[in-house]
């Protein structure tokens, strides 16, 4: 003899189905509540998002913007092998420094040991993806040992950060190791 139960044999199944229906209806209600009214007018996006993106502050600029106000650096930078390197790659976004060509803050400049870290971002031999023929790859401190300088040396003690071979070539010329060359920027070689 089966005992009497308070619930019907299928009561739990009906409840589960009802819960699923309620969840589904709740989902549809949430969509109606949270989806912005201009969503889907032209595609799977909010129309106002285009306006938002247009109004977003442009943080990055080209080298041209930077060099416009820095003629001295321009001469050196464009004359060296780093001429294709973006200013922002080392200094950070233009927007942190100038807005509408007006200076708002000092540009971050790396100094001391930070210079070494910065240089090794590109020149570290551990990054095996760099072809040797297009970029000088070095390992520290072997490079310093090979050049017979102290291993505590920072990169910019020998290399000008904007034209890395500038001082090296000038020093070699001064010691007669290479001949004087004509031209405005002889260290370009």
């Amino acid at each position: 003899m089966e005992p009497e139960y308070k619930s019907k044999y299928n009561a739990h199944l009906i409840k589960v189905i009802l819960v699923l229906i309620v969840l589904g209806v709740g989902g549809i209600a949430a969509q109606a509540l949270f989806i912005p009214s201009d969503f889907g007018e032209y595609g799977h996006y909010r129309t106002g998002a285009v306006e938002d993106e247009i109004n977003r502050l442009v943080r990055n600029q080209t080298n041209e913007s930077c060099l416009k106000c820095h003629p001295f650096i321009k001469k050196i930078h464009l004359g060296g092998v780093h001429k294709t390197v973006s200013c922002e790659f080392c200094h950070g976004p233009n927007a942190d420094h100038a807005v509408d060509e007006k200076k708002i803050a000092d540009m971050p400049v790396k100094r001391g040991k930070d210079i070494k870290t910065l240089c090794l971002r590109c020149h570290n031999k551990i990054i095996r993806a760099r072809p040797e023929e297009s970029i000088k790859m070095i390992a520290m401190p072997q490079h310093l040992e090979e050049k017979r300088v102290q291993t505590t040396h920072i990169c910019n003690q020998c290399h000008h950060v904007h034209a890395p071979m500038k001082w090296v070539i000038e020093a070699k010329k001064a010691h007669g190791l290479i001949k004087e060359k004509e031209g405005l920027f002889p260290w370009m070689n």
Partner: protein
Amino acid sequence: MQGVAETATAVAGYAFPNDFHVHWSLMIVLYPYITGIVAGAFIVSSLYHVFHIQALKPIARFSLLFALAFLACATLPLLNHLGHPERAMNMFLTPNPSSAMAGFGYIYTAYGIVLILEILFIYRETLVKLKDQASGFMKNVYGVLSMGSDNIGARALALDHKVIGFLAAIGIPMACILHGYVGFIFGGVKANSLWATPLMPVIFLLSACVSGIAGIIVTYLIIKPRAADSECIRSCIKFLWGFFILDFVFEMLEIGMHAYLSTHHWHALHELFWGPLYQSYWIYQVLIFSVIPFFILMGLSLIRFNDFIVKLFGFIASAMILFQVLLMRWNVVIGGQLMSKSEQGVVSFHPEWIAKEGIIPAIIIMVLPLIILFILSKVFPFWLPAESESSSSK
């Protein structure tokens, strides 16, 4: 001409972003790992509930709860990886059927509902009985979990049985889709020559089955080292070996296909497999954690050893296979990003211990499912003394 040469040099030496930073790191290694364990554990349960492999009866319920515990944490690595995790729910507000990434949200949710319902229906009779014995807060908990019904008569249980059969039957393809999808998301990245292969979903699915079964064996033997059912362990080992044969063969076939086809990407893949992945792939994943457990499982499947040997070596082989699958995830996810986009060479990756996506958060995320499993064990009894006698325990 000098200008052309300079331009070419500048392009070849361009600093691509992946040379500095592996964007999909440890969290994206864990995501397919945890999801795979979920899918695999569900398949163990289905082998009993749908295919009526009687030897797996002792772990049929446990494996469902095991799957639920890991399912509850499957999204954590993704949420931790995201810059704006709060936007995750947008995929439900504005569903985009053509988004492969959003696909996970839909599959995961649907599968989660099926899994929870299946557990509730399987446990309903037990929960109703526990509700009668419980008092206070737990009585309310059991009342909700038993779906507000006290009817455990023959007719109600027969209905439950039908529902369970239906849920288990749709649960199998859903579990397969859940993990096949994870393979799809990698296989669909056509810019990555390591990932972009139609074999990827198959390999991910098979490794999911392998990791799920291995995870069940390991935890079952940790919880019940002596009392674990030997015949059940033997059956699990045979299924593990079977799935692992397929998994391992497909893994080797994939790299064999790459090598034989020798497309223009092969030089980059070759450099990858014999460069930064040499140890983690050939030495660890293939040689140590695939070949050794393969032969252990073969021995345990073909020769009848005594129970102690079966449990001991079954545990060792399963633990090794769990690690093999983790290594496979690592080698696929991280390995795929170690090739420079320039295809000029490879880069290296070393995970940090303390970082947002570092080793410590990874450990925490892997321990969380075990804590959830422990909490679940306080509500849902994994093993019932009367389970073997009860005809309705399915």
